[in-house]
């Protein structure tokens, strides 16, 4: 059936408000910041096209580039902790929730485990800061004061907060697994372990891949928890500085660092490019080959 022209127009009209807001507040700023990264806007001469020199500065100025690579490495570490800890725990919780062993308390657990994700990061940071405070808290070791443990500690706080997200994501995927397959394998004598790994998991692999790449996007965009705990020059010795805080410091300045909008825009563009390449590469190389087994 073909739609009449008026219906097609009204479809466009329905989308228009959301599209306009999205264009105005997401797409336009994105492109203007990319454009800005090729200009020197705060010099004597006003707006001056400088080509790639902002990028050259970012990658060659010894102090700035060292901070940038440090922040990139820390972001990678931040992501790694999430993938290694948060996603598997989320999968485990989702598997337990759908296994039937919890019976009627399933809803209670689902809610309880998801609640932290709805809390403000400022609250989460404050609570954890008190819990691990060497003076008043449970742990005598200065976890946040040691460069080798600080970033992992903050990552684990974030994992605690957001573990509910992969959990509900994978939970809903697991609910969609047809019951007759599970029943059939059970009749064939498969153990719950075997049922999960040979029946259920292969059926949710595409969603599992998706949550991994979403975690990548969330962690590389990460900023708020680190900022809430350690400010815009996160120590000790920049060991908890991630791309988000590095960008914030460049664009908005910090106590001792003068804000430089052009360098900030350059950093933002570099972060955007990294995420675009990784996400694009993932969808191109991996996701399109993942097929849930057709039933």
């Amino acid at each position, binding site marked *: 059936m073909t739609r009449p022209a008026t219906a097609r127009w009204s479809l466009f009209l329905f989308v228009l408000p959301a599209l306009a807001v999205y264009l105005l507040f997401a797409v336009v700023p994105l492109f203007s910041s990319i454009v800005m990264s090729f200009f020197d806007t705060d010099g004597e001469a006003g707006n001056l096209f400088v080509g790639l020199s902002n990028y050259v500065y970012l990658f060659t100025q010894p102090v700035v580039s060292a901070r940038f690579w440090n922040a990139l490495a820390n972001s990678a570490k931040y992501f790694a902790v999430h993938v290694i800890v948060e996603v598997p725990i989320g999968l485990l919780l989702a598997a337990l929730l759908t296994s039937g062993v919890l019976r009627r308390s399933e809803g209670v657990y689902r809610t309880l485990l998801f609640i932290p994700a709805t809390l403000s990061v400022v609250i989460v940071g404050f609570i954890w800061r008190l819990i691990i405070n060497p003076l008043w808290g449970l742990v005598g070791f200065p976890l946040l004061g040691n460069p080798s443990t600080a970033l992992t500690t903050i990552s684990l706080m974030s994992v605690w907060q957001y573990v509910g997200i992969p959990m509900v994501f994978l939970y809903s995927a697991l609910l969609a697994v047809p019951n007759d397959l599970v029943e059939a394998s059970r009749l064939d004598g498969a153990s719950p372990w075997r049922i999960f790994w040979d029946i259920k998991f292969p059926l949710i692999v595409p969603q599992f891949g998706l949550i991994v790449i979403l975690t990548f996007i969330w962690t590389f965009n990460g900023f708020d928890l680190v900022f809430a705990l350690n400010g815009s020059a996160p120590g*000790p010795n920049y060991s908890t500085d991630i791309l988000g805080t590095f960008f914030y410091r460049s664009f908005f300045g910090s106590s001792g660092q003068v804000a430089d909008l052009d360098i900030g825009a350059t950093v933002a563009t570099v972060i955007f490019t990294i995420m675009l390449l990784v996400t694009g590469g993932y969808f191109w190389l991996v996701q399109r080959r993942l097929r849930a087994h057709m039933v």
Partner: protein
Amino acid sequence: MRWKPARTTLAILALGVSIASIATAAMAEPVTLTLGSWRTEDLAIWQDQVLPAFEASHPDIKVEFAPVNTNEYNAAIQSQIEGGTGPDLITCRPFDVNNEWIGRGYFASLDGLAGLANFTDTAKAAWTVDGATYCVPVAAVLAGFFYNIDIFNELGLTPPTTAAEFTTVLQKIQDSGKYTPLAEGSSESWQLAYNGLYSIGPAYWKGEEGRLGLIDGTKKLTDPDFVAAFAAFQAWKPFLPSGQEALSYSDMTQLFTLGRAAILPDGSWNINQVTSTGLNVGVFGPPAVEAGGQRYLQEMPDMAIGINAASAKQDAAKVFLDWVSGPEFQQIYVNSAPGFFAMSNQAVTYDNPLAQHFADLKTGALLTPRLALDRLSAGTPPLDDEIWRQLQVMMTSDTTPETVTGELQTGLASWYGPQQAK
């Protein structure tokens, strides 16, 4: 139609009201000055105390206090002045930001303002370029050591005056086993510099002599005086609470106000906090290096007021600034905002006893601002930020003062001209 006449009446009424308001504005005699500031928390002080006092003696001038948020202040003033809508009076940031503003021609000259004679050159340094001062100093903050008088009495201690005595006092508190000697943590690196090194350091690098030496390139951070200052700060390590690496500024203040630590290296702005629990608190200044040696005190210029060069009310603005430089204003302001101190050389008395003790520390001491905020932080890497970071490294690892000062000097010399020539 009923609505038409009603609307006409309304329009006529509105016209009448606006004409009336224009007329009153034209008839009103006093000149109104606007004062831009970042101290939103001072709104009540200015409106209820400072400005009524000024207007009482100057009925022909009215001043309107117009603060914006601290974090937005610099950007707001810059865009307002560039756009021609700046306030008549501008509150001046200390050092580099203000030097930039002076360079851009934001300020009218203060030549011939008699009140400027009330301030020493050191007090005016933060707002002076090439010998000309563009802002009248309003207030400074001081750094020193709050101490718990009851603990000192219990252990039979007196406030130390020399570095050796300071160590002895710390050791005795440590030996008592009941209290932590120093409430100090390394989680927030700014206060390691501002309340720690920049407080005890001037005694070693001889205050202004060392600071100006770094600025004109005749001194280096690797000189023995500076290394000795860093070493003296590192010597605090055994006297800090366990887990100090992760303790924040508020943790330190709490440790002290709960009576679990004897001494808190801090800034004067924290006066209200440390006495909030009714603790018996005294204050002593950074110790001299040797007995009978010169004492130094960190006096950090915080704010001043200058005149917008584009303002049409220069004369009235000068009258106001002359009043700001006098004792009446200073007396009102510093007593409304405890922790802030007058910078003029006229006697000002403080109602808050602890503030008065703090002010008394200035007697006989040479004053010096924070080490690295004047010119030394206007490039990449900014020296001040680097000192924060390196102090945190030094206090949380085994890094030596020699390594730290060496790296700081290399960083500074990488961009700061006067340090490169040598």
